[in-house]
C-alpha cells in the first residue's frame, strides 16, 4: 500500500491556524510523525484564499522538507499553484492532481517530463463526476494518452475513481470495484488510489466504515490511499489485509509493524 499522509491540509482547523501563524514546529511535527508511521508521501495542501495559496504552499513545502526526507505530495485544486511551487521540491514526489477538468493536464503533465515524479488523476471532468464506468474509463484514457506524450507511463499515475458516499449511494463500493476492474483491464500497471473517507460521509461511526472499506478495497485492487498513517487502527487493517491476502510472506511486515508500534494501539512509540 502506497500511503499518502493527509495530516497537513488547511481544511483541518488546527492546521489552518498553524498555516496562518506560520507555526513551523507544528507542521514539522506532523511531517515527522507521519514519516515514522510509514507515509510514502506527505501531502501538503494550503487550502487558503487563492491569493495567499502559493506563498502558504511554498512555506509548507520548505517546512516539511526541513523536517523529513519523505517525498511530498503537492496538493492544490489550482494547477497553476502547483506549477508555481513545483521548483521548490528538492526531490521527486507526487502531484495532486489532474483530471479531465479545464487545462489541468496541459499545465501539470509537462512538469513530469524526464523525471520520476508521479501524479494523481481523478476521473471527473468539466461535467462533474460521471456515474457510469464507461465515462470514467474514457476520462482515464484521455489522461493516460496525454501523459504518454510527455513520456509518463501508467505506473506513474495514481488513478482516483472518485468514490461516492455510501450514505447517498448504496452501490458506491460496488461501483468502485467495477471501476477498478474496468480501468485495470486497460491499464494493468496503473495505481488505484482513493481519498476513501468520502465513503463514510453522512454516517455515524465513520472510522469503522473507513477501515472496513479499506480491507475490501485492497482486495479489489486499490494499492494507494490518502489516509492518516498515525491512525493505528487503520494501519492495522492495512497490514492484516495484506497478510490475509497472501501478499506478506510469513506475516513478516505485519509482525514488524506490530513490534515497531505502528499498528499496536497499546504500545507507545519511543
Amino acid at each position, binding site marked *: 500500500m502506497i500511503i499518502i499522509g493527509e495530516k497537513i491540509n*488547511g*481544511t483541518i482547523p488546527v492546521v489552518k491556524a498553524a498555516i496562518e501563524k506560520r507555526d513551523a514546529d507544528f507542521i514539522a511535527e506532523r511531517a515527522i510523525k507521519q514519516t515514522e508511521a510509514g507515509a510514502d508521501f506527505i501531502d501538503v495542501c494550503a*487550502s*487558503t*484564499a*487563492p491569493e495567499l495559496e502559493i506563498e502558504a504552499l511554498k512555506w509548507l513545502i520548505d517546512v516539511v522538507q526541513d523536517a523529513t526526507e519523505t517525498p511530498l505530495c503537492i496538493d492544490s*485544486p*489550482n494547477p497553476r499553484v502547483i506549477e508555481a511551487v513545483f521548483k521548490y521540491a528538492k526531490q521527486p514526489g507526487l502531484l495532486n492532481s489532474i483530471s479531465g477538468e479545464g487545462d489541468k493536464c496541459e499545465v501539470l503533465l509537462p512538469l513530469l517530463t524526464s523525471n520520476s515524479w508521479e501524479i494523481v488523476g481523478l476521473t*471527473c471532468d468539466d461535467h*462533474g*463526476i460521471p456515474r457510469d464506468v464507461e465515462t470514467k474509463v474514457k476520462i482515464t484514457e484521455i489522461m493516460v494518452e496525454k501523459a504518454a506524450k510527455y513520456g509518463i507511463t501508467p505506473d506513474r499515475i495514481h488513478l482516483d475513481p472518485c468514490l461516492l*458516499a*455510501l*450514505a*447517498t449511494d448504496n452501490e458506491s463500493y460496488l461501483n468502485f470495484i467495477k471501476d477498478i476492474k474496468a480501468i485495470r483491464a486497460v491499464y494493468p500497471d496503473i495505481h488505484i488510489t482513493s481519498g476513501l473517507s468520502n465513503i463514510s*460521509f*453522512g*454516517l*455515524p461511526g465513520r472510522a469503522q466504515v473507513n477501515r472496513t472499506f479499506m480491507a475490501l478495497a485492497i482486495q479489489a485492487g486499490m494499492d494507494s490511499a490518502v489516509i492518516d498513517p498515525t491512525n493505528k487502527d487503520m494501519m492495522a487493517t492495512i497490514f492484516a489485509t495484506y497478510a490475509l491476502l497472501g501478499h506478506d510472506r510469513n506475516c513478516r511486515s505485519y509482525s514488524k509493524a506490530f513490534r515497531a508500534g505502528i499498528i499496536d494501539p497499546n504500545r507507545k512509540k519511543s
Partner: protein
Amino acid sequence: MEILKKIAETLYDGDERAMPGLVQEAIDAGCDAQEVLDAMMAGMAIVGDEFSRDELYIPEVLCSCHAMMEGSKILKPLLTDQDSKSLGTVILGSVQGDMHDIGKNLVGMMLEGRGLKVIDIGIDVPAEKFVEAAIEHNADIVACSILLTTTMPETPKVVKAFVDAGIRDKVKIMIGGAPITQDFCDRMGCDMFAKDAGGAAALAVKLCEK
C-alpha cells in the same frame, strides 16, 4: 385523526412503500388533501430537527424524503385546484467552481418537504445565474451551497450580483457548506447561514412564514 398520525410516523420512519397506500386510505376516509400534506410535513419537521441534532443520519433522511415524494404523488392531482400554494420560493445551487451536489440535493429535498417551492439550478452556477433565476421565479430566498475553501470567494460575487441587479433587498441570501461559518456569513453580508439541511429548511420556513 388516527390515520394522519400514522402518516406522520410513516414519513418519519421513511417507509416509502407504505406511504402511497396510507395517503390513499386517508383520502378515502374523507381527509382533506391539505391535511394529509400537513401531516407529512409535520413528520418531516421532526426528521429535520433530529438530523440537525445528529440523531438521524443522511440515509435515514433520504428515506423520509423518498416517502414524502411517494405520498406527494397521490396528493398532487388533488391539491392543484385549491390550496397548493407554496410557502415561498427558493433558488438553490452550488456556486461556480463547486461540483458538489450531495448537500445541495439534501437541502432541496428538505425544503420541499417543508412546503417550499425549490428551483434547483444545479452545480457550478455563476453568480449571474442566481440573479436570473431569482428574477424569473420571483424568489424569496437564494440558497448557495459552498463546499470548498477555494469556492468561498464566490460568495461576495453572488451578493454583489444581487446588489448590481438592484434586487438585493427583495431576496434573502442563505449560504451553507462544510467551510462556512456564521462569522463568514456575516462578513460577506449574507442573510442566513445554515449548518445543515434541516437547519436550512427550518430557517427558510421561519422566514417565509413571517
